[in-house]
């Protein structure tokens, strides 16, 4: 890591490098979502509409499943929205770092916000005091390629079906990338407590519907960590 201020160019390069291993998970997931959409009777145009309009894999998959099984419209919509509630948490966490950006750019960031863009950006912004332009550039360098891969692979999935081999532990690779992002965020004891509680609760609550385990785990971890810090300091 250099001492000189990060340029936009180097931020873009770093963002693409950081994003690359996560693309390994996004691409097959996109194929699965596209293939499922066509199996459940959605047209290519409708599948593309979902990917463009919603751009969030887990909620798209849930919506497609429920639409295919003829669930009531309200159930489809509520389930998909609950899955995306975690975005509120990400939005709150990112906001203080970009409050001086023009609102239009923050709107672009909002549309592109996904787990991967949040994870990589927040850890980088906490570790380095990049200028605002470099922060935005890093975020886009992560999010725009992921968006492009998502749009492309969901369409390919509609056309050719799911061709992803089962026996490559691709999803495990993605877990390891998130783990590698998690570790540097453990800067003090309250944050370690937050992570342990969040991870443990999420694992235990795995069976909850609509990905609720993620938000329940995270909220428990936030509460435990904040309580620890208030009680014992950092």
């Amino acid at each position, binding site marked *: 890591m250099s001492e000189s201020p990060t340029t936009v160019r180097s931020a873009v390069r770093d963002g693409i490098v950081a994003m690359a291993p996560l693309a390994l998970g996004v691409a097959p997931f996109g194929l699965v979502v596209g293939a499922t959409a066509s199996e459940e009777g959605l047209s290519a145009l*409708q599948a593309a509409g979902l990917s463009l309009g919603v751009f969030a894999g887990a909620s798209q998959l849930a919506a497609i499943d429920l639409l295919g099984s003829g669930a009531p419209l309200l159930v489809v919509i509520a389930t*998909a929205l609950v899955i995306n509630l975690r975005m*509120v948490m990400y939005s709150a966490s990112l906001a203080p770092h970009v409050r001086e950006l023009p609102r239009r750019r923050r709107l672009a960031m909002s549309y592109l916000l996904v787990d991967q863009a949040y994870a990589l950006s927040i850890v980088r912004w906490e570790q380095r005091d990049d200028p605002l332009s470099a922060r935005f550039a890093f975020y886009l360098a992560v999010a725009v390629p992921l968006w492009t891969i998502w749009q492309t692979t969901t369409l390919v999935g509609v056309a050719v079906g799911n061709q992803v081999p089962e026996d490559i532990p691709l999803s495990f690779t993605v877990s*390891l990338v998130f*783990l590698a992002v*998690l570790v540097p965020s453990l800067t003090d004891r309250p944050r370690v407590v937050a*992570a342990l509680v969040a991870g443990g609760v999420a694992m235990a609550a795995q069976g909850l519907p609509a*990905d609720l385990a993620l938000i329940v785990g*995270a909220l428990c*971890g936030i509460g435990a960590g904040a309580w620890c810090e208030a009680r014992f300091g950092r």
Partner: protein
Amino acid sequence: MSRVWLVVAVVGLGTLAARGSFLLVAERSQGVSRRVERVLRMIPPAALAAIVGLQLADPDGSTGLVARLVAAGVATVITWRWANLALALVVGVGVVIALDAVI
């Protein structure tokens, strides 16, 4: 099937609202209380750990839970000590494949 387009519109707008909930009013986030700051500080470790925990617990059909947990532990140590993502990925995937073959 206009049901699909209704879902696209409502879920799309709702998701954008969730994503923009704080980002779009970020200019007002100056001078938040210490309590709010404390909560915000806990979001990255908690959210990331919840993502990892859920992924590790959720069977993906190709690896066993114990193998995943051990491999994740090894990868954590590598990241902690050497901050080397490539090494953590290679060793982590190696460990999970090896353990799966044994267990």
